[in-house]
């Protein structure tokens, strides 16, 4: 019995991965090429949700501000891409780039820096206060980019082409789909290693009892801060990919509802698990897409549906069949 469960728990992700790998071909066969872009969107938001999970599920930090890091990553990639196209310098100093690897690194750096600063301040509080402060900082960044006329302000920033990677034809949606898949898998691998590392074990201890961990000599603030920074960086990475997918960046990406959606994906899929947040992202965006195809009042159905699912699958979809 236990063995069957274990097998299912390994077989399901492998089957899902096989399905993902085959998806561009299947979409072609079915005459539904738009599915490829939809699935890419799911993977990118799955990456962002999984990034939030490092703070939320591993660290117990309920952040309502992760859209800010997602947006900062997107703008980092978008701004450098724009400068590369114009042949101008960012801040008169830094040359632009149309290379995906460079822009992903820039996104990691920029969002990591934002998370380092916001985390250092927000982590001095806890509970509701922490939720509110992360939200407040995210709103500040949102309005900063709305006011940033040099990079499109309210209207956002359109990119001429997707970034380059190893001479691949990035214009092809299937190619970009596979690039995103590789980044997502790499990120999930890092998450799995992190969870079982010394860092992950101590972070999990802090989530369960900060007082206990302080009593064994752990500087709990430092661990939480580091978790928050890594978490912000992952969200920024997702932002850089999203900027490429739609060739568009706008302050809307930083809207607080995006932070809320990332939280919902975690709750739905299972915060604290490796695959849960990504599963939650696929589920949420999948529902949205299906319901939006049926009726324009899809949000009225989605809300109660989410509530029912969260109640039915306590601990998230990833924990189905697993004893708590």
């Amino acid at each position, binding site marked *: 019995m236990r063995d069957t469960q274990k097998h299912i728990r390994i077989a399901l992700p492998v089957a899902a991965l096989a399905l993902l790998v085959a998806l561009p071909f299947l979409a072609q066969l079915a005459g539904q090429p738009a599915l490829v872009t939809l699935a890419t969107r799911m993977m990118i938001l799955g990456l962002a949700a999984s990034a939030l999970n490092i703070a939320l599920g591993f660290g117990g930090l309920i952040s309502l501000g992760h859209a800010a890091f997602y947006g900062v990553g997107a703008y980092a990639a978008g701004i450098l891409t724009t400068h590369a196209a114009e042949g101008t310098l960012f801040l008169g100093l830094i040359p632009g780039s149309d290379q995906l690897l460079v822009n992903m690194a820039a996104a990691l750096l920029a969002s990591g820096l934002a998370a380092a600063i916001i985390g250092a301040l927000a982590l001095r509080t806890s509970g509701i206060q922490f939720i509110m402060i992360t939200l407040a900082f995210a709103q500040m960044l949102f309005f900063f980019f709305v006011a940033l006329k040099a990079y499109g302000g309210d209207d956002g920033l359109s990119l001429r082409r997707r970034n380059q990677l190893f001479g691949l034809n990035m214009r092809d949606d299937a190619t970009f789909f596979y690039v995103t898949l590789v980044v997502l898998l790499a990120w999930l691998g890092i998450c799995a290693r992190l969870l079982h590392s010394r860092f992950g*074990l101590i972070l999990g201890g802090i989530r369960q009892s900060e007082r*206990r961990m302080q009593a*064994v000599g752990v500087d709990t603030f430092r661990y939480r801060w580091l978790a928050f920074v890594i978490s912000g960086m992952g969200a920024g990475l997702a932002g850089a990919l999203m900027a490429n997918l739609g060739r568009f960046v706008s302050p809307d990406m930083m809207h607080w509802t995006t932070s809320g959606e990332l939280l919902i994906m975690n709750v739905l899929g299972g915060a604290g698990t490796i695959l849960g947040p990504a599963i939650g992202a696929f589920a949420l965006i999948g529902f949205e897409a299906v319901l939006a195809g049926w009726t324009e009042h899809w949000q009225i159905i989605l809300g109660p549906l989410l509530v029912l699912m969260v109640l039915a699958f306590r601990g998230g979809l990833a924990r189905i069949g697993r004893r708590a």
Partner: protein
Amino acid sequence: MSVLLAIDDLVKNYGGLRVTDHVTLDVLGGEIHALIGPNGAGKSTLIGQIMGEIKPDAGRISLEGHALDALSQAARVRRGLARTFQTPDTLGEYTAQENVAVALLARGAPARDAALYLDRAGLAARAQMRVADLSHGERKQLELAIALATHPRVLLLDEPMAGLGPTESAQMVEILRGLRGEVAMLLVEHDMKAVFALADRISVLVYGAIIASGDAASIQADPLVREAYLGVEEA
């Protein structure tokens, strides 16, 4: 024997309530110094202040001659202080082994050493059990194993026998006796049988103040103590 932990003229008020009233107390190398006193006397608050969890209003605390007052709790643990909690505060999602492992990892020691400390606390057979499935007595033992894993010079024990049955209590006494000489202890305890069995010295805390200090015989004979504390126990 040399003084390991020295507490000098410590004061702590909670609003109008003085919970630590000019306490001066020390723990010598290798000794078990028991601290007894009625409920609410300020024993746990004193341990919290020694660890750096609670900030005293006045006074000094030092370990092996080094002032601890400006140090964080983490730094104090690195210097050799460890505590157990009166109400077990263990990590509920982790196994007993993992609870000890985090204390080892925190000081850069290998997690596999956890077995050693679980064994010393009499929990070897429970290593792979989740804390949620342990009995109260086993959680008390786990508290001890975690504290030992930080490799302390002075162990602050906050009522290690509280809530234990007679057999478990006797087992805990044996475990602590086995640690004698290796690690100095400040033993806060209500169980007088355990205190008299273990302590080299006993201090009595009443309303935040130390009213007597000495060996078991002199404490039992002290009229102040009999009135303020032991009398209550006998009634």
